[in-house]
């Protein structure tokens, strides 16, 4: 395919790095480099979407409020994006930032709007549409140099429909997702974009059985090869805080990050485990 000089320039021009998007999540010096894929994996109610909102907020918040000030595309295949929740998280982050540094930078409302305008939301209702949309994104990426992160919630949304439509052959069943993965691989490589995608677990995890069958990825191999950082989310047993009655029991979530190092010479895996809880103001690490 031909490419104009301007397109080439904007493609190769350094995109913003999201390596330090959340240092508490990834192994030491191991944040997602340009062109790397992060997968968030877990069953319902393990904080995947909350963690995704956390990363999203970090990206779109202005630098004064501790954000990265980059553009984000949110591909919503689950129709689950709760804008009101997102806004309340952004609001609380902006408020804490403002109370820290007494200098007020414009009114809250305008800052919030400018944050939200850095976010692009795409709703997809089928895997075919997802594929076409990714193609469309590829074409429009060169005109958006500030775009640094692509979020997909979730990549497994059409898994069962594809399985059924594919009939008997596994290759046919996985065709669409493989094509999506191939295309995403190209976006990662050519545009140095970073991608975070959630994936629903389809089996109930058995308590106490670490690294059981339920944690293994079931998506096609083309997808599995793309993933460099895998975040396994799970819910801790509810710890009742005794003493004062008002203090409600707080739900604690665990994330286990396993990153395969990007240096091609050695395939070293590094791990990091962290705890967080979800409050009104979003994810808080413990």
């Amino acid at each position, binding site marked *: 395919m031909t490419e104009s000089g301007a397109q080439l320039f904007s493609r190769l021009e350094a995109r913003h790095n999201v390596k330090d998007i959340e240092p508490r999540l990834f192994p030491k010096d191991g944040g997602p480099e340009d062109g790397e894929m992060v997968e968030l994996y877990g069953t319902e109610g393990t904080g995947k979407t909350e963690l995704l909102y956390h990363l999203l907020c970090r990206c779109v918040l202005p630098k004064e409020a501790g954000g990265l000030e980059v553009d984000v595309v949110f591909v919503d295949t689950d129709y*689950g994006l709760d804008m009101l929740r997102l806004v309340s998280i952004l609001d609380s982050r902006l408020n804490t930032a403002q109370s820290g540094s007494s200098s007020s930078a414009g009114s809250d409302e305008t800052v919030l709007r400018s944050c939200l*305008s850095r976010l*692009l939301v795409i709703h997809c*209702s089928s895997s*075919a549409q997802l594929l076409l949309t990714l193609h469309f994104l590829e*074409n429009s990426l060169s005109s958006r140099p500030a775009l640094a992160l692509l979020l997909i919630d979730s990549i497994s949304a059409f898994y069962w429909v594809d399985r*059924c439509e594919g009939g008997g052959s596994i290759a046919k069943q996985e065709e669409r997702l493989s094509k999506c993965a191939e295309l995403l691989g190209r976006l990662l490589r050519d545009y140095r974009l970073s991608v975070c995608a959630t994936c629903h677990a389809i089996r109930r995890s058995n308590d106490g059985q670490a690294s059981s069958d339920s944690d293994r990825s079931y998506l096609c191999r083309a997808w599995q090869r793309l993933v460099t950082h895998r975040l396994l989310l799970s819910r801790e047993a509810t710890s009742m805080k005794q003493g004062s009655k008002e203090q409600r029991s707080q739900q604690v979530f665990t994330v286990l990050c396993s990153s395969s190092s990007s240096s091609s010479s050695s395939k070293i895996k590094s791990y990091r485990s962290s705890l967080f809880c979800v409050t009104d103001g979003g994810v808080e690490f413990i």
Partner: protein
Amino acid sequence: MVMLREGMCPGLHEDLVRDLRGAGVKTVEDLVSSDIEELAQKCSVSYKALFAIRRVLLAQHTAFPVSGADLYEELLSSTAILSTGNPSLDKLLDSGLYTGEITELSGGPGSGKSQVCFGVAVRISHHLKQSVIYIDTTGGLTASRLLQMLQAETSNAEEQMEALQRIHIFRLFDVYSVLDCLHSLCSGGLQRASVGGGSVKAVILDSVSAVISPLLGGKQNEGMSLMIQVAGVLKTMAKDFNIAALVTNHVTRGGSGEVQPGLGVTWAHIPRTRVLLERVENAVSLHGHSSLRSATLIKSSRQACHIKEQFDLQWWSRSPDRSSGKRKLEETQLESSA
């Protein structure tokens, strides 16, 4: 999946469609993801023309990105919170059912799922003067119960009839007819339903598990796929038409004996808010059958989970004349829980 047809976009004429088909390109996806240069040679058509066709098709079939700021603006003006009419439940749901979302009620037999659905339907049709779509898959809906609830609200017979007319009921007993119904609602049915009065604000599917759970187990792919399709059309309908979707689900027991909503882990991702309804064990009313229920919030993006509230099913039919109303209610409850 969209097949390539002549006339879909300028330049895509009959011969070209045939040539493309010969080269193994049948759908829009195929065309978009294939190498245009190679394809142009194969079909002996100019690269430029084919590239233009690809661009137009892509623009036609892609999901269009919306700025977050615009989405928020739109949401602020269009989201409504529909009160269930019961203060305890409203408190649990952060003031009611939100439009654009799926809310799930789960519970065992006789835990009051259907009663809550009736109450919500009556509340929306009478107080808000808006229409409700009620898809009944168990045959548990009785018009007399709806009327009884309305009689508790107003003694004006005309108002009662008007409210009943705003509740549109579909009795469907398998997943294919439910899917059919939902699709036809999306393509015009909702507008037709709102002709008589207020627009449709809620779609109640009571119960979703009755049509889906028979499909699970055997041929897993097919059952799961149908479940996701039902979920998909409910979600898009809720978002696109600003409707609150309320579904009911049965319960199962997990490995360690705890009660959990049915339909498994894949369905668990679908509803935005999940409420578990249970009988209050130790409460015994005068008539032997207690109408006290407890509701536990087990999934929510707005409130802390595992909040518990108690409510009385009789709330929706508290009438000024208690003695007669109460006995009637007890009877219908027995019926509905049987």
